[in-house]
């Protein structure tokens, strides 16, 4: 359950990295908001992704 939540947060982080830029492209968001959301997405990704990605690597190495 903890892993699922972590993965979900990571993918929200990735989403915050790309979706604001798509909204800027379609003129539905201003650039400054996009930059702030992308920074938030970056922090979210780097805080959560190592917790499940590295665990997966270790498991696959053992397997």
């Amino acid at each position, binding site marked *: 359950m903890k892993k699922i939540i972590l993965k979900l947060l990571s993918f929200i*982080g*990735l989403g915050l*990295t*790309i979706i*604001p*830029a*798509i909204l*800027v*492209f379609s*003129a539905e968001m201003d*650039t400054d908001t*996009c*930059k*702030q959301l*992308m*920074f938030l*997405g*970056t922090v979210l*990704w*780097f805080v959560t*992704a*190592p917790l499940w*990605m*590295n665990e997966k*690597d*270790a498991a*696959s190495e053992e397997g």
Partner: protein
Amino acid sequence: MKKNTSLVARLNSVNEYEQQPIPTNKLKGWRSFLGTYAGEHTAGTEFVIGPLFVAHGASAIDLVTGLIFGNILAVLSWAFLTAKIAVKTRVTLYYLLEQIAGKRFTLIYNLVNAGLFCFLAGSMIAVAATAVGIPFDMAMPQLTDIYPNNLGWVVTVFAVGTITTIIAMFGFEQVSKFAMVAAPWMIMVFIAAALAVLPRLGVTDLGSFWSVAESTIWTGVPLEGQSKFGFWHILFFAWFCNMAMHIGMADLSLLRYAKKWEYGFSSATGVFLGHFIAWIASGILYSLFLIESEGSLTFAPGPIAYSAVGVAGAICVVVAGWTTANPTLYRAGLAIQSINPQWKTWKVTLFVGLFTTIAACFPALVMMLLEFVALYGLILMPVGAVIFMDVYLLEKMGLQSNYAAVSGSSLNGSVAVTWLVTLVFCLLLNLVAGVEIFFLGLPGWFVAVLVYVVASKINQKK
């Protein structure tokens, strides 16, 4: 792996199966290679190569078609040359080279490789420094710069180089894990940055992209002092920028874990994400910078990415530069350590780091990255040609393969002559016939094959 494992033990674990074929139960499936290639080929170099295509006046149609065909040729080279030999032999390039060329030749090869690794790592330290210098309002290097031209640049490069070296001395495993984590995010930042600036270039919907691409982004006009790039430049660059890895056979070390040779096609994820999408994205960013700065010759990926998507962009440049520089520095250290395994790894890495950081102070390393990457592949290519011939054709021609191992020689003269003659041939082709460095790899490979067969016939008759 336990946290308190010593560095030596970690190095030993890295070297696992270097002296023997991979056991069947250690082979890996498709997904492992798809991820590895996607991660490895979206790196700091992408922030430089895409903009340099713009600076060299590539047109939009030449860029897109050249990249598509060049990348396909690169994938075919990985699959049909590297992966086939990797699955047939299941050993590393270094082990195979020792069998064919001898220990002394492998040592020389390692040293050359280490030198090239240092310059590659140096260019990535410089790229990261352009982002680190943003808060300090550092004067950025110019496209025409060769030597360092301000103290702020040298201090920033040394700061980045020192941190990179210290981490390479103690934390390779963590950096490797960090790079894997960073890879999907980096690809997203590349795409996001390009998308976010397209409206500033006049692209308001997908339908208008191509006309803006032709008229504004890749105009076909080189910047002042830059040579003109056409379709063939782009195609050969895309094909040969990783020549050391596929035709040069360095990726035998990776693909020997593949269950089937067809896994070589998984390199497509790397080349089409890193060498297509990321190059196009970074080219778009640089083109906008040129327009908004009214043709400034400043060439600094950090401020360009920061201007496009803010702090996330600057972090991406630092992470991309650093995750490329760090393992490269570590590999250079290991290669130099092969001269004398008694030397302490950390001392060798410290020395290599210092050399690399001094090299990174010279902006020419970044500005001439296209030429350097082409040279890197070219220098290591003859060894790949030798391995190809030795594995597939030498015995069919009535000659002995793995000659150094069989004859007990530490230096197979045929391989040394092949390397030397091929590189001299390529140099002459460049100096006398004026053939640009990007095109030398293909004729060079055939010359290497021919010279190796003739030299082996003469050498093995003795």
